[in-house]
Structures are given as C-alpha cells and as structure tokens.
C-alpha cells in the first residue's frame, strides 16, 4: 500500500517533470502547423505547411544558417584540438601546477558568456590596434572573433569529455608503439587517436551544438556575420511568427532523429561485440553470423518508425492544400469582422446620438476601441480566450478581431496579406 503509493507519486512526478521539459517543445512544434499568424495551439485554424515555405524564403535565416555552419566548423576544429591538447597536458603536468592549471582551463565554463564575449572583443580589438591594422582586418572579422570567443569555453567542455576517456588510456600503449619503432606522431595517429576516436566524435558533436546555439558570447563578437541564433533572437525579440516554430520543429526532428540513430548504433555495437565474444575461431576468420540490425534493438525500431512518420509528413505536405480551409477561415473572419464593424458602427451611431445631445466630435477617437473590450491592458485578450472555450465553430471566427488590438495582432494583418 505504502510502496505502491510511493511508486505512483514517483511516476506522477516524472510525468510532470518531463511535461515541463518536453511540453514547450511539443507545443512549439505543433504551432508550426497552425495557419494562425501568431504561433499558438488554440484556437486551431487550419493545418498548414506554409510556414516552412516562408522559412526557406527568409534570406536572413538562410544566411544565418550559413554563417553558423562556417563558425561551427571553425569552433569544432579549434576547440577539439585545444581540448585534446589541454587534456593531454592535464594527464602529465607537473603535480604542483596541476590544480592551478585545472582551475584555469575549467574556468571558462563558469565565466558568464557575456563576459567571455566582451573580453574577446576588447582583447582582439587591442591586438588589432597594436598591430596597426584597420577595422576591416582579419582580427576584427566577425567569424574569427566568434570562433575564438566560443572556443574559449567550448574547449573546456571538449576537454572534460576527452579527459574522461584519456584517463582510461594506458600510456604503456604509446610506449609499446614507440618501442616497436613508431615515431611519436605515428604512435599518436595509430594508437592513441583510434582509442580516442569515440570521445573525439562526442566532443566534436558537443562543440558543434554548443557553437550552433550560443547566443551570449556571439552577440558581442558576430560583427558582419550574424549566426542563426543571432537572427532568431532578433526575430523573437521584435516579433514572433510561426516560421520560427517551423524552424524549431525541424531542429527538434533532426535532434530526435540523430539521438535515435546514435542510440541504435550503440546498441548494435553492443550486440556485435557480444556476438564476437561467442564466435568460434573459424567464424572469426571467415564470416561471423551477426544478428540482424533490428533484433533486440528498440532504438533502431523507433528510428524506422520516426523516419516513416517524417516521410509521411513530407508527403502530405506536398500533396495537401490547405487553401480551402484557410479560405473558409478567412471568410468566417471577414464575416465576423464585418459583424464587428457593423456593431461598432451601430454603437458609434448610438454614441454619436448621445454625444450629439451633449457635444460632438471629441469622444470619437477614444470610444473607438472601447466597445470590444474593457479598457485594461490584460483584458484586451479576454474576449478571444473566453470565446475559445465556448463552442468550437464560433470561437475560430471570434478570435480575429480581438487579435487586431493585442500585441500579437501586429502580425495578423501581415500574415493575412501573405496569404493572398
């Protein structure tokens, strides 16, 4: 009784926790498919893929992706190299210097990204001036500064990943290679590097992702080369559209895909290793009977399901035409808008009559927004959401007018225009 209660509460807690963690991503992804001009789940208007089209026509986003890829590649190369060198140094540094050295190379993780960005900018600007170079020199180039700034702390992450693996490396292996006639470079390339390869791959992926999503440091260093994250931040700060949801959906999908792929690969390696262990000599020499890719591999199965789902969605997207639905919605909106306008007119008429009785003209401007709402700023949205919980059909139509008056409403006219 007591333990089952405990178990249930654990699962409830887990459910709430993961809802907090994953819910926002799911909701954001879903809003990419709603034709509403403001990213939202409800009211649901029409299933649409238009935001993806819009996304791929946005030159700034595309340019941002290009810059992010260039900077990401540079950061991966530099920070993996520095991280590996740093890790190698950590394993053999003079013991008295070890603690100081570790503090220095781990510090960039804790230093706020803003501070790193500023210090990078200030320092290289000074170097640039000391060398007498102009404002357009290589050292003040946005790509160079961003790679340098990001690598400062990303190399620390790489170092942590690499040193974990390096601690399991037996230095005697390198010595054995040297003893058998290899040069230091050969021993590194043929023995240590293959051993470190999985960790280097993880570090590279980690470095790329960290570079790709970095904002705090990059915002000070990007110069003429805004990355995708910078562009996104500009967009999100000054107005949000479902095109961003569409991008988010793509990123979420890619992430899930690669996570599953990686998991499936790992699982498969485990299975192969297990199979080898049991294999006899003859089998090893010739062919080993390997288990099929899917046997006992949950992740692989999920991966295939995921891939099929993606293909289905893309297929639907090319075939599906939401024009009819959108047209319907628009029609309803227009109807609703007309209704509202008529209502407004009626009210205005009444007012005018009243005011005419007292005084003319003056109150007209003030009274215009009043009829739809109460005057408080929060209440602007009330009719919309109240309508939303009412009967479905009507709610869709009701939402539009209120939107025009809220802060999100700025975008609605735009999206309506782009529809046409």
């Amino acid at each position, binding site marked *: 009784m007591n333990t089952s209660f405990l178990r249930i509460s654990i699962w409830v807690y887990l459910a709430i926790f993961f809802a907090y963690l994953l819910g926002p991503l799911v909701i954001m992804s879903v809003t990419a498919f709603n034709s509403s001009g403001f990213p939202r789940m409800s009211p649901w208007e029409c299933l649409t893929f238009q935001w993806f089209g819009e996304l791929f026509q946005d030159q700034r986003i595309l340019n941002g992706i290009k810059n992010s890829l260039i900077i990401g590649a540079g950061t991966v190369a530099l920070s993996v190299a520095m991280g590996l060198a740093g890790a190698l140094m950590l394993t053999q540094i003079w013991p008295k210097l070890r603690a100081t050295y570790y503090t220095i190379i781990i510090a960039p993780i804790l230093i706020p990204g803003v501070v790193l960005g*500023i210090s990078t900018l200030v320092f290289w600007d000074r170097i640039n001036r000391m060398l007498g170079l102009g404002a357009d020199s290589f050292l003040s180039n946005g790509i160079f500064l961003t790679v340098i700034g990001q690598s400062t702390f990303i*190399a620390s992450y790489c170092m942590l990943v690499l040193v974990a693996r390096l601690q399991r490396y037996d230095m005697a292996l390198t010595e054995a290679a040297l003893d058998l006639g290899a040069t*230091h*470079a050969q021993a590194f390339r043929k023995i240590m590097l293959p051993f470190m390869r999985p960790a280097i791959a993880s570090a590279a992926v980690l470095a790329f992702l960290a570079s790709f999503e970095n904002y705090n440091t990059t915002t000070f260093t990007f110069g003429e080369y805004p990355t995708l994250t910078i562009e996104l931040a500009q967009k999100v700060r000054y107005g949000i559209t479902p095109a961003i949801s569409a991008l988010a959906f793509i990123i979420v999908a890619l992430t899930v895909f690669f996570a599953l792929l990686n998991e499936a690969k790992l699982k498969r390696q485990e299975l192969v290793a297990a199979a080898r262990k049991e294999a006899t000599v003859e089998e090893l020499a010739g062919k080993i009977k390997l288990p099929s890719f899917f046997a006992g591999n949950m992740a692989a199965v999920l991966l295939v399901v995921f891939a099929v789902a993606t293909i289905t969605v893309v297929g639907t997207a090319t075939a599906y035409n939401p024009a009819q639905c959108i047209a319907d919605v628009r029609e309803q909106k227009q109807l609703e808008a007309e209704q509202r306008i008529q209502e407004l007119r009626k009210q205005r008429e009444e007012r005018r009559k009243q005011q005419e009785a007292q005084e003319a003209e003056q109150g007209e401007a003030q009274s215009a927004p009043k009829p739809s709402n109460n005057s408080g700023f929060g209440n602007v949205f009330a009719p919309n959401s109240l309508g939303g919980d009412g009967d479905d059909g009507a709610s869709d139509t009701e939402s539009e007018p209120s939107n025009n008056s809220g802060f999100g409403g700025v975008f609605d006219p735009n999206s309506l225009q782009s529809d046409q």
Partner: protein
Amino acid sequence: MPGFLKEFFNRNGIGMGAAILGFVLFWTIGLIILPQLSMLDFSFRPNLPPPEIGGPKDVYTLENYKYLVFGPEGGSQDYNTVDLRVFFRTLVAAVCVTIFNLIICYPIAYYLGQTEGSHIRIFAIMLIIPYWINEILRAFALRIIFGETGVLNTLFVGLGIWDVPFDFIRNDIALYAGLGYAYILLMIFPMYNVIESLDRNQIEAARDLGAPWWRIHWRVVIPYAKPGISSGCTMVFMLSAGALAAPQILGGPSSLWFTQLIYQQFNDNNDWPQGAAYAIVLLVTCILFVLAVMRLFKVNMGDIGK
C-alpha cells in the same frame, strides 16, 4: 622547470610536444588569461574615440565603477538606484532559480542514478534532447506558452479558474521558468553522476537500520552527492546570473537583467569601458559569492566540472 620541459618533450616527441604545448598556451594565455586581464585594464579607462586611445587622455580612472554606484555625475540621486537595483535583483533571482532547480532536479537525479532498467536510457535521451535545442528557441517555446493568448492562459481562463488572462511575462514568472528550464540539465547531470556511483547497499543498510526515507537522504545520499550538488548549483547560478537570451525574450519590458545593462552599454551607448566595468563587477561578484557559499558548505573547487 627545464627538467620538466625536457621530460615533456622526451615523452611526447618534439613535434607532438610542441603542438600540445602550443595549443595549451594559446588557449590558457591567449584565450583565457589575457582577454580577462585586458578587459580588467579596459574597465579602468575612460571612453575615448579611437584616435585618442593611447593619447594623453588615456589614463586610469575609477569613473566606470563610480558610475555603477553613484550614477552620472551631478545626477539627481545620491546613488545609481536603477542599476544597483537591477544588479541585486539579478543576483537574488539567480539564487532563487538555482534553489528552484535544485529542488526539482534532485528527485530526478536520484531516481535516474539509483534505478536500473532500459527505461533509464530513454529518460536520459529525453533529458538531453531539449538541451540540444537552441536556447533562443527554448525561450521562444516558453513565450508561446506564457503569452497572454498562450496555452496556459487559454487553459486556465477556459477552465474558469481565472476571469482574465494572467500576465506571466510582466510578472517575471515566464523569465524564472525560462531560466530554470534552460539549465535543468546542468543541475541534473553532475548530481546524477555522483549519485550513480553511490553503492545501493548503503541505502539498503540505512533502511535496514530503520531510518525513514528523509533521513536516508539527509544523512546518506546528500552528503555523498555534495560534490555533484555544489557543481550543479555553481553552474546554474553562474549561468543564470550571466544569462542574456532568456531575459531578453521572456523578461517584461521594465524588468532588466544585469547582463542586459552590459549589453546596452556595449551596443546602444557604445561605451565599452563602462560595459567592461559592469562585466567585471558581475564576474567578480559571482565568483566571490560562489566561493563564499562553497566555503560555507565546505566544498572544494576541484569538484566542479566532474
């Protein structure tokens, strides 16, 4: 030291040794130490147009730091209340976010670390996936949820719990939720790593001796997990105090974060030395605060990052 260097080159070879040493020196000195010193130096200089830099006017001054405390010279107030308030609010909020994260993450870290089964891997993947999504997009996702016509307002107003939508953004709830959300993984992972290595028998033994569950945690698990807890807390505190994206996207129009002031000094006022001074103040305060708290809880610096 030359002996150490000679041994280093003996062990790694001349070429490899030079490459390792070169990268390490470039990183530690060129990327970590010199830029910080350079920023420190810069923060003590007046804001001059480029031609005058290095000229007679380029002298050391405390002006930039005075500004943070006393405000512009001849200003109407004795103290720079606006900036100081933002500064302390940032620190207090960062502490709150850290505590909030610690409380919600500890049970998860404990569960993941002490439970066996294939579903743990799935949970781990589910934990990591949000972390691979762009920080800006995560903040954006929360804005969709907390917006005035967002999911939460629609839901609560729809259920009739509230009459009017609640302004999460203006009340900073969105901001705190966003900061907490952004750094969950950084709190869970260090704790998970430590708790995972805790021998299950210890807990069994404690339970066997009749300890109630809270005492097991208080006396066995938490002391053992202290390095992980301090590591997680330090990272979450430093990163939330230094966060920029979440406050910019989720903060209300009037609620500034200290990093936003720094950002303004650099990008809007074009006053780099002033921005550098603010950055130094933020960095030094955060480090001192972390060191003080670590001292209080008797944790070593070497435990961070493990």
